[in-house]
């Protein structure tokens, strides 16, 4: 395993998309130190900002406050990136496989347009988690993003497949223009959840304010959620599904598109 520790905070965001198991695994310690990173217009070396210890493998450990380091794990297909500290924008963007774990917070565009793999963040995330980039047709197309804390605007914007599960509250426009996939909101959401969603599922475990373009359909416990519950339980995230505990209120929409999406709001049994 190779361990990088940040020793000098960049003055402007540092672009480090080569910090990925696909790139690092076949390299020697010296070659990793010499990898290029972009500081504004200037090209620098990894060891200008990080101490590099150990020998490369499928696992990279990065320590320190990386909130100004962008694109870590970009497009990775395998291996593991463990970050002890905060991480910057575009973490795991376009990733296709492997695992990223963050013990800390992350900023915007976490897992944007990813197509596979797992990202797990213990803290909070910024906006546009798993989203499509501006002008792009689709956000994430597969994979799983788990966030222990809260998240920002436009979570899962235009996502097509995959799962985003968030333990805390998310801000406005969760599932904006969603095309498929599943977003689980453990702590509910602020405004305009599911706006313009065409397909896909938003599950909220807390009551949320819904747009008037969503229509109440039924109260039930869909069987497919049991599969998701089992999948997420294996990743340490729990969602209820049992009749004894309550049921989901199903709302369909967004009728303004018109859409075939759904928002499932958990209603615990009161008696």
């Amino acid at each position, binding site marked *: 395993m190779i361990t990088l520790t940040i020793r000098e905070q960049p003055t402007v965001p540092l672009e480090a998309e080569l910090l990925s198991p696909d790139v690092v695994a076949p390299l020697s310690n010296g070659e990793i130190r010499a990898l290029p990173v972009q500081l504004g217009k200037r090209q620098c070396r990894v060891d200008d900002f990080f101490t590099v210890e150990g020998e490369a493998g499928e696992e990279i450990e990065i320590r320190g406050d990386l909130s100004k380091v962008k694109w870590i794990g970009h497009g990775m297909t395998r291996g593991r990136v463990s970050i002890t500290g905060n991480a910057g924008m575009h973490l795991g963007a376009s990733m296709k496989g492997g695992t990223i774990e963050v013990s800390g917070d992350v900023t915007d565009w976490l897992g944007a347009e990813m197509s596979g793999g797992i990202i797990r963040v213990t803290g909070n995330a910024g906006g546009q988690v798993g989203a499509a980039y501006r002008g792009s047709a689709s956000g994430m197309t*597969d994979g799983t993003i788990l966030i222990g804390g809260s998240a920002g605007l436009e979570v899962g914007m235009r996502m097509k*497949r995959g*799962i985003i599960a968030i333990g805390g509250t998310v801000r406005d426009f969760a599932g904006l223009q969603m095309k*498929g*996939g*599943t977003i689980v909101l453990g702590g509910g959401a602020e405004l305009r959840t599911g706006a313009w969603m065409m*397909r896909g*599922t938003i599950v909220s475990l807390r009551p949320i304010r819904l747009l008037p373009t969503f229509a109440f359909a*039924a109260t*039930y416990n*869909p*069987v*497919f959620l*049991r*599969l*998701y*519950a*089992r*999948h997420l339980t294996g990743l340490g995230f729990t969602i209820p599904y049992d009749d004894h505990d309550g049921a989901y209120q199903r709302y369909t929409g967004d009728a303004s598109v018109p859409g*075939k999406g*759904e928002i499932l709001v958990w209603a615990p049994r009161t008696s």
Partner: protein
Amino acid sequence: MGAADVVTADARAAIERRGVRIVDTFAEAFDMRAARVVITAQSAAWARTAGQSMTGFATSVIGCKVEAGIEAELPPETTPDGRPGVSVLLFGFDADRLGRQLVDRIGQTVLTCPTTACFDGLPQGTERVTVGGQLRHFGDRFQSSKFLDGVRYWRIPVMEGEFLVQETFGVQRAIGGGNFLILATDQRAAVAAAEGAVDAMRQVPNVVLPFPGGVVRAGSKVGARKYKNMIASTNDAYCPTLRGKDGVDSQVPEGANSVLEIVVDGLDRASIEQALRAGIDAACRPGVVEISAGNYGGKLGKHHFRLHEMLQV
């Protein structure tokens, strides 16, 4: 009509088990294709109901286009959605025809059964047939799909709620037509021995006994002596009432007055052998004269299960 049984005039060299003669002959079985369907429901009873309904009229691939049976009841912790279930094995001539049977049978008997969901039990199957991807049309464009861990599931709205079915099901090579015959002193003894055998064989995984209660009373031979358009007709050699009649090469020994057959289909040879061994052993009880097996002289099916070899293992 059961599996065809034209037994050649094997020497009646026999071994005995608990006083029952085991004829030195073999069961002849065939290459088939199999699918495993896991049906879950709110309760074990509803899962069983769907499984029984799905495997109805599925005794012989000749007459019913498919052979099927309930393989096992599944506790909640072993099913994909954590509800009680049953696993059903279905056997057909090829993947294409088996796939059509899956669509028809799941569509008519599982989709319609309250609280059920339907999953592929052979994810490692070398061939795949589209099932949920066909049944989704029942949703009249109100259906939706979910994609999880590389598998697509269809959610079809129904009056009771929602029917969940996997898009494709795996199909693998299998063997159909393993069998043995129980020749007993009377009908009561034959039935009791067959019931004991079925109980023992149903403990074996990867196999099903497709006939009613797992037992066939109407074994058949290929074609017919008099009716040329018949694909199969009664196995006169094992009909006790025809013993001694001209033109009948009766294989019913002295003292036997009732014969029952047990047919077993399985995913692999080892499972069928295990089931046959268990069944024959359980059938060797008072009132049973002889255990034999049905074959076509070894010319039609490439899988031969020699009774003596199996029992000596």
